[in-house]
Every structure is written in structure tokens, then in C-alpha cells.
């Protein structure tokens, strides 16, 4: 047996699996997206661009997603960065591991249950009640874009902290010391040394969170009260409510294409910024 045959044999199970569970389903979605809705739901085979012509009817969902996904990603980044910096650079090494694990622990409770906690916290008997107590009456938080944003940040913060921490932790502390010894102001050290060196972490973290947010369904469904509508919610409705498989397939194909385009542009930008490709391509 040559090495090549052996390698191909080793690849066979994974290849078959990808074929049956990825290529076939995605092809079916692509084919259906050119079909027509059957009168009672489902799909009739056809070759028409009607479904794609209809896409503007879901423009609002795409707009919401394309707005809240980057905003959520950047918000998570802004909150996570100082924490990751603190953990990587400032904290006593004795406590480093423990504090890091503590960031990840909440991630082990399913996102469903964590969102459920926020339903209570943002609901009338949670934070608004506390605010009412100190004089801010009638504040409504639950079922608003704000509550969805809180859920998103909360849900994905650990995913952002971790890659940031990894890249900041690799940073040679002597560089920082040298910089301050040479009389550089702290913010200058940060802008010229720390920040550029942490770009791979920023890139990975943002991409992870962004990809997950683009397909998000649960957080808007639970914390948005059905009023904050993402592409994910539109897809669920199209397949599980109005049963318009043809149109739903077209929306799904469009979502994938939009993601491929944004992520590819994003990777280009990042690699131009000088990040190492291997670090980014990890996800």
C-alpha cells in the first residue's frame, strides 16, 4: 500500500461524511432556491429567479443583522479587550489561570439558560424594578434592541476574551518595559506595541463572534420578544411557519453568500494590517 493510498483511505470517512451531510444538503438548498412554492407549502421544481427577485421583502431582516452583528462584535471587543489585557499583562501570574477559567465557566451553561436569566433581569421585576427604586420610573428594557445587544455581548464575551488573551499573553513583557524605560507614554506604548501585536487575537475573536451573530436566532427570539428580527428568525419562520422552502432556500443562499463576501473582505483587510495568516485561518 503506498502512502498516497493510505492517506486517501484515511480521508475516505471524512470525505463521505462531508459529501452526504454537507455537499448534498447545500446543493438541495441551491436547487430549491430556483424552485417555486407549492400551493400548500414545500417546493415544486422549476427554474426561476423569482425567489431572488423577492429578496427585498426580507431586506429589513438583512439590515437588522448587518447592523447588529458588527455592532455586537465591536461592543464585545471593546468590553473584552481591557479585560483580556488585564488578565494577560497586569494580573499576578498566580491568579491568571483561575481568572481565565472564570471567564469561560459561564459559557458552559447553555446560551438558552443564560438568556433566560436575562429575561428575568431585564424584565419588569429585575433591573427596571431596581431603577424604579432609585427614582427612574417605567424603564423598559426587555424585548428591545438593547436587550438583544446585552444578550449578544453576554453570550459571546468569553469567545472574544480568549483569543485576545492568547495573543496578548504571547506579548513579550520586556518590550513594554523597554518602551516605558525609553520614556514612552503608556498610551503610546499601547498604540505602537500592544495593539499591533494583538491584531491576530482581535481578528480571530471578531471573526468568531461575527460568524455566529450572522446566523443568530435564539437571542433575538428570547430577548427580542419577536420584535427584533434577524435573518435567522426570518429563516426559521420561512421553514417552520409559512413553509416557503423555495424562498427560504434563496434567503439561506443569500445569507451564505453575504457571509462569504464579508468574511473574505475582512480577511483581506486583516492580512493587509499585517496579521499572520495562520492565526486568522484557525477559524
Amino acid at each position, binding site marked *: 500500500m503506498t502512502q498516497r493510498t493510505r492517506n486517501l483511505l484515511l480521508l475516505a470517512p471524512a470525505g463521505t461524511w462531508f459529501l452526504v451531510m454537507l455537499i448534498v444538503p447545500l446543493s438541495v438548498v441551491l436547487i430549491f432556491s430556483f424552485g417555486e*412554492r407549492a*400551493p*400548500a*407549502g*414545500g417546493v415544486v421544481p422549476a427554474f426561476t429567479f423569482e425567489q431572488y427577485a423577492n429578496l427585498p*421583502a*426580507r431586506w*429589513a*431582516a438583512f439590515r*437588522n443583522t448587518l447592523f447588529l452583528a458588527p455592532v455586537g462584535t465591536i461592543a464585545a471587543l471593546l468590553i473584552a479587550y481591557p479585560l483580556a489585557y488585564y488578565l494577560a499583562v497586569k494580573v499576578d501570574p498566580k491568579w491568571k489561570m483561575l481568572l481565565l477559567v472564570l471567564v469561560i465557566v459561564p459559557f458552559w451553561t447553555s446560551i438558552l439558560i443564560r438568556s433566560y436569566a436575562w429575561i428575568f433581569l431585564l*424584565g*419588569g*421585576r429585575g433591573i427596571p424594578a431596581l431603577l424604579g427604586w432609585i427614582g427612574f420610573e417605567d424603564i*423598559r428594557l*426587555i*424585548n428591545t434592541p438593547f436587550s438583544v445587544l446585552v444578550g449578544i455581548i453576554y453570550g459571546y464575551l468569553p469567545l472574544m476574551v480568549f483569543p485576545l488573551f492568547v495573543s496578548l499573553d504571547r506579548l513579550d513583557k520586556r518590550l513594554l518595559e523597554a518602551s516605558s524605560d525609553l520614556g514612552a507614554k503608556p498610551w503610546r506604548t499601547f498604540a505602537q506595541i500592544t495593539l499591533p501585536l494583538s491584531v491576530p487575537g482581535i481578528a480571530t475573536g471578531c471573526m468568531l463572534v461575527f460568524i455566529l451573530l450572522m446566523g443568530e436566532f435564539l437571542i433575538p427570539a428570547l430577548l427580542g*420578544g*419577536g*420584535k427584533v*428580527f434577524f435573518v435567522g*428568525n*426570518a429563516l426559521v*419562520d*420561512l*421553514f*417552520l*411557519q*409559512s*413553509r*416557503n422552502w423555495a424562498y427560504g432556500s434563496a434567503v439561506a443562499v443569500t445569507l451564505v453568500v453575504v457571509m462569504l463576501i464579508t468574511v473574505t473582505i475582512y480577511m483581506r483587510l486583516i492580512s493587509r494590517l499585517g496579521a499572520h495568516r495562520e492565526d486568522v485561518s484557525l477559524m
Partner: protein
Amino acid sequence: MTKFNDYISKQKFMEELYRYKRGSVTRRHFLNVTGLGAATAVLGAAVPGLLPRPAFAAGDIGDRVILATWPNYHEPANFEAFTEATGAHVQVNVFGSNEEMLAKLQAGGSGWDVYVPTNYTITTYVSEGLIEPLDASKLPNYDASAFDARYAEAGSVDGQLYAVPKDWGTTGLAINTAHNGGKAITSWKEFFDITRDSFSGRTMVHDYQLTTIGNALKYFGYSFNSVDEAELADAEKLLIDVKPHLFAISSDYQPSMRSGDAWLTMCWSGDGKQLNTDMPEIAYVLGAEGGEIWSDYYAIPKGAPHMDAAYALINFLLDPAVNAKEVLAHGYPTADANTFALLPESLRNDPILFPAQELLSPLEFGAAQTLTDPNRAELMARFKSA
């Protein structure tokens, strides 16, 4: 072991049910009962002699049956009794809309044995070949003559029986009167007007095009079932205008109404009954303009994996003594005269369960076309994403 399941007399059982219904809904009881069920099963497995002896050979119908139904819609103790009697465990899947049920069945992967469709869906299931014709001889408890025809006729299509009636109900509104000076409102017009006024941010509408669009149509006095483009355009304008004032678009309104986050909601009568029982300040009202009246059925989907168990379960639930317990739990009226006779006096005269005839007469049954109309589905999507 059996003291809880076979236990107390029917009288005592009714009282028990009433007592916990006043303080709480079915869930607690559910957990109580199912908890005991699990204990029995564990002990039974360890000590063969303790296994509950089925009333007829367990092998007959298999060991499980899968029921697709609605939230807060059954008496869990009845399922325990069914398991006791037949050896088949009941697995319950819960759904929020008929569209969702239809979607899962059309996707071919349901694997359900019994499901609970609403009147206007049955012709669609028949034309799509998704429903099994019923053999009435396997349902000895089904006494067709005892059912009010209004709530039973949708179960037959072209003379063939496909579904047997479960219960019926209305779609009205529930309002927390404490926030409206102790007064309820009386119409869909008021529903949408008060939402844009003093109830802003406190109102819920269903995540279900049939009722949400239907009731918006009633605001203008149009038919609940309208698929007329101009009328739907009016309804859309109203809904999009109201949307910023809504608390949520969701068919699961009980938690929010109970917690006080929501004050007003579109509401199915059984939920209205459950809410009103626990919180008397919540009133259930039928819109003066009309609205929906519906009836739900038991049916078997095509290719059900446990056909015999499916028949056994439906037959069991149609037993008037069992059905009466169901009614006490879910708070919807029955169309079965035999079951009605077993209900306590107070329930038979309950205005939420059995509204006065003049309130019922403007109500409309949903139509098959209303459910499957693509324009209504798209309208709902535009409303939700607006």
C-alpha cells in the same frame, strides 16, 4: 405505589384538581405525578413484581406513543393512567402554531402517532396526503351522536372520518384590568387603540398570522378570514403602526401576563380561563366585532410508527371520565354531551368556557385558505421585520 394513580375517588380527584388549579396551573401537578411515575418505573425495573400490570397485554400496542399537541393542553395524570393501563408511555411534543405542525409533517420527519390539528387545517392535511383515515370501529369511545355537529363536522372530509373532536374554544383578548381602572375593554378596536395609548409597551399579539392578522382585520369590521388585498393592506398598516407599542409578538403570553410585564394580549379561551382563575384581575373578553371560534381534533398522521397505540390513546382520551379531567386541566369547553354531563355545575355555567350565544354568533371559524394563503404569510413576515 399505586396510591396516587388509582387512588382517590373521582369526586376527590375533581376537588384536588380544583384546589391546585386555583393556586397554580397544571405544571406542578404534572411534575408530582410524573415524578411518581419515574419512581415507579425505577423500582419496577429493579423488582419485576412491582411493574404495573397492564390491563391488556402490553405487547399489543408497543411501549410508546408520541403525541404532538399544544402547550398547557392536557392533564398529565391521564397520560400516567394510560401508561398504567396499556404499558405505553406517552411522549409529548409541544407546538405553538398549526403552521409549525404542518411544516414538520410536510418535512416528512415527524414520526408522531397522534397530533392535534385545528378545524381549518384538516382539508389541507387530506389533500396533501398527510393524515390517516380513521377506522371508527377502533374507537369504541367515540360516540359521534353525542357531539355537537358544529365542532365535529370538520373532522370528516367527503364522508370519510379523519379526525375526532377534542375540544373547542374562542380567540379573544385577556386584559389586566388593574391597569385600566378596573375596567375591561370590549372590542378589537379598543384593543389596538388602547395599545397605542395608555397600554403602550404592554400589549402582546400572537406569533401566528391567522389570529394576529384576523383580529387586525376585525378592527375594520372585515372578515377574520379575509384574503382580499385591499383589506389585508389596511390590516398591515394597522399592525405596523401598532408595532412600536407592542410588548412582544409571541404566542406564549401566559408568563408575561403573570409576571405583570404585559397587561393585554390576544388570548385563547382556555389560557384566559387559567389566567383568570389564578389572577381574577385578568379578564377574558370576546371582541364585540367578532373574531375566531375554533375546534381542535385528534388525528393520526400518515405512516404513524405506532398505529395501534395511537388508536388506543385517542380512544382513551375520548372516554368521558378521562375527557372531563382534561377539561378541568385545560379550561376549554368540550363538544361532547357525555363529558359535559360529568363537569361540575360551576364549570358548565362558566362564561369564559361557554359564552352567551349572542357573543358566539359573530365569531367565525378559520378557513383552510386563511392558513395557507401566501400573502398573509408574507404580511406577517413584513410586520415582524418592520
